[in-house]
Structure formats: C-alpha cells, structure tokens
C-alpha cells in the first residue's frame, strides 16, 4: 500500500539523523547535538528556567553543579532565581542575595532574576535588586499564595513593565486555569514581557488559543506534557517559545530532548532551532 503511494514514510518509524548510535545514550551530548541540528555546537544556547540555592522540599542546587550540568550539554548559560527557599523571610532578600553572589562568580553564564512575594513588602527588595542589576523577576503564585490578578501582583507587573523587566510566572504544577487573567494583564500592559513558566499547561489547549494574540507573552518549555508542547509549538510558532529546564528538578538532557523531539515532530524548520534554544531569550533580554 505504501509502495503504491511511491514513497516509504521512514520518518514515521525513525529518523536516521537522530537514531542513537551504539553506546551513545539518548541523554548524551553527542546524541542531543544531532537531534538539535547541531545548534548545541553552533549557536548560543540559553536556558530560561533554573534555580539556585535550596527549597523547602529539600532540593538544592549549587553553582558548581549547575555549571556542570550546563557544560555537559554545551548550554552557554541560564536565567537563575531562588527556590521556594526556607530562608525567604517576607521579601526573599537572603535567597536573592545568594543568587546574586553566584552571578558574580559566573557573570558570563548566569542571568539573575529576583524572586518576589507580592504579599509582602516587595518594593524595597525590588528596588535593591534592580539597582544591583537583576535582569528580571520570578513570581510563583502557588508557593507565595496570590492570584495573578490580585492588586498586589498587578502592581508588580506594572512596575516591571515600567522598568522594562521581564516577569517569569510559574503557570505549572499546582496552579489553576490562568489564561483569562494573563490575557487581561497582557492587554493592560502591552509593554510587559511575560514569560509563562511551564507554558500554562494546566489551561491547555485553551491557553494557546486565548494567549496567541498577545505578542508580549512567551512560553517556557520546562516540565510540559509532550501533547501540550505540541500545541504551543504548532499554534504559537517558534519565535515566542523559550527553552527551559527547571534545573535541578529536570535535567538539561531531558529538557533539551523533549523540546527537540517535539519541534521536529511539529515540523519546526531546522533554521529556527537556534531561536527556540536561546535566540528568542537573548532577543527578549536585549542581548540578541
């Protein structure tokens, strides 16, 4: 039957360019390099989502281990911010200072974002971090227990838009349907650069339909279901999708692998892989 159509569809079964060689596991650099059309070797690769320090859940990640993971896969660097740190106090000052100290040790590899708690006295910490040189903000509505549309959160968004800082918002594990709130924020603040950590997967597929119209909204790919990542790549396109890992919870290897495989399946052109894996983030931050 297939022969009658004139061509055997090999890509249904495998792709000769990405079948691992013997002794070359799927989580190896050699395999991932081929899977990403050599982007890992030839283009700047930047991760949009990594933590430094320690979390209330017992996880931790230090600078040396972070850089070791990035180095293994030739990832040039990453956006970093604090965990849900047990030492966060009312304003995250202590963990933000730790992130900044790590940045000072590896300024070419890290892009520090400040983590804020809109429920607390966030303004002094925001100003301190802004003056230091933090390049963005991380908000976690579940961990810090605030609705995205709350007056306090909107104040943070407004300030970030005024100062040109991107805001990465957790829209994954444990959150509800937020696309309507996000659309309202994006509409009210067209200058706000909003990065959706985990691509709003709880609200899929509605989220891509609702949010596609807002060019100031970006989708970050860590710990997203393959079927949801398909929707994001297929609907939003390659220019508003940002590679992320969520280190240390997921590894660079698995995160690179999933985005590359799904981009391949969706049919993203090889020429746009460099945008997905770092180019879009660097342009968003004015470094591209």
């Amino acid at each position: 039957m297939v022969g009658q159509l004139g061509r055997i569809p090999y890509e249904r079964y495998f792709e000769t360019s990405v079948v691992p060689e013997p002794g070359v596991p799927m989580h190896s650099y050699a395999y991932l390099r081929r899977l990403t059309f050599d982007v890992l070797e030839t283009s700047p690769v930047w991760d949009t989502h990594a933590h430094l320090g320690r979390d209330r859940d017992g996880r931790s990640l230090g600078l040396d281990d972070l850089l070791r993971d990035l180095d293994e896969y030739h990832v040039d660097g990453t956006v970093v911010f604090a965990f849900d740190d047990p030492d966060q106090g009312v304003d995250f000052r202590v963990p933000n200072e730790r992130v900044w100290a790590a940045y000072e040790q590896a300024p070419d590899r890290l892009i520090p974002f400040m983590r804020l708690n809109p429920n607390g006295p966030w303004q002094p910490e925001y100003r301190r971090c802004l003056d230091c040189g933090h390049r963005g903000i991380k908000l976690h509505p579940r961990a810090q227990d605030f609705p995205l549309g709350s007056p306090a959160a909107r104040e943070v968004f407004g300030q970030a838009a005024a100062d040109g800082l991107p805001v990465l918002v957790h829209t994954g594990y444990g959150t509800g349907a937020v696309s309507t709130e996000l659309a309202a924020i994006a509409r009210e603040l067209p200058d706000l650069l909003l990065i959706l950590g985990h691509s709003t997967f709880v609200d899929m597929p509605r989220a891509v339909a609702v949010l596609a119209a807002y060019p100031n909204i970006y989708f970050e790919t860590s710990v997203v279901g393959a079927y949801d990542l398909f929707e994001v790549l297929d609907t939003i396109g390659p220019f508003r999708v940002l590679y992320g890992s969520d280190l240390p919870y997921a590894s660079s290897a698995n995160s690179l692998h999933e985005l590359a495989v799904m981009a391949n399946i969706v049919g993203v052109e090889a020429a746009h892989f460099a945008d997905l894996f770092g180019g879009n983030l660097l342009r968003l931050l004015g470094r591209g």
Partner: protein
Amino acid sequence: MLLRGTDPLEVCQEVVARGLHPEEIDVDTGDQILPLVLDDRHHLLTWIRLYSRCLAASTLFLAGAVDRCVWEIDAALIAAEDAPCFLDEIYLAELRDLLRSAREQMLAGETDIEHYGPYVALTEAENLCATRMIRREVHADRRRYPRT
C-alpha cells in the same frame, strides 16, 4: 528480510539506502532476532500500556499514595524490560532510567505533595511514551493533510 547488526543507526541507514520497508525487517543481533519496528497496532498498544502505567504512577504520587505509586512504577519497569522490537530498546532504556529515578527519589523520602521531583521524573516518563505514539500519528496525519 533479515538484517544483521547491533547498531540502530547503521541498520536504519541500511534500510533507507536499500529502500526496504521498516515493518518487513527483522534484525539478528547475534543474541536474538527481533522485528526492527512493531506494526502500528502493537506499537500503539506497547506505548499505551507504558504511558498508562506512568500516568497511574504520577496520579498516585499526587494523591499521596506512595506505596501504590511505587507498585505502578515496578509494573511499568516490568513492561519496559523486554524490548518488543530492535529499535524501541533505545527508548525503553531511557524510560527505565526515568522510572528508577522517580522510584529512588520517593524511597529517599520525597513522598509529599510538596515534593516536586518525582512528579517531574514521571512527567518526563509520560512524555517519552507520548512522543513515541505521537510520531507515527502525526506522520500519518501529515500524509492525509500535507502542509501547504
């Protein structure tokens, strides 16, 4: 047709170079003879079985039923142990690594809803299964509805 080899890349390249159909190839690895790939029905059932085990494990973890979650992971590991075809062994090996990682994290005490790590590992395991299923479906779909 029977091909000899242990290198998946070389075998796949030979299949393409000779214009052979993947579903008509068996591979003699020296230790055993396996089909290169499964036909559509068995491929789908294999990965549905594995996906459903991973999904069940993830759901049980979120429900706080860690013992039952580990039981599901063990069942998934059994289902992923024997490669049903030559090419899938690569992906099954990776799946086993992810499942063992989730298992080890839970046995090390990450058992509470606030522990994010096992959820991540199980999500990655689900994704690996899903991508194996999606690949064939998308290409079948693309034949019917080619991109313009």
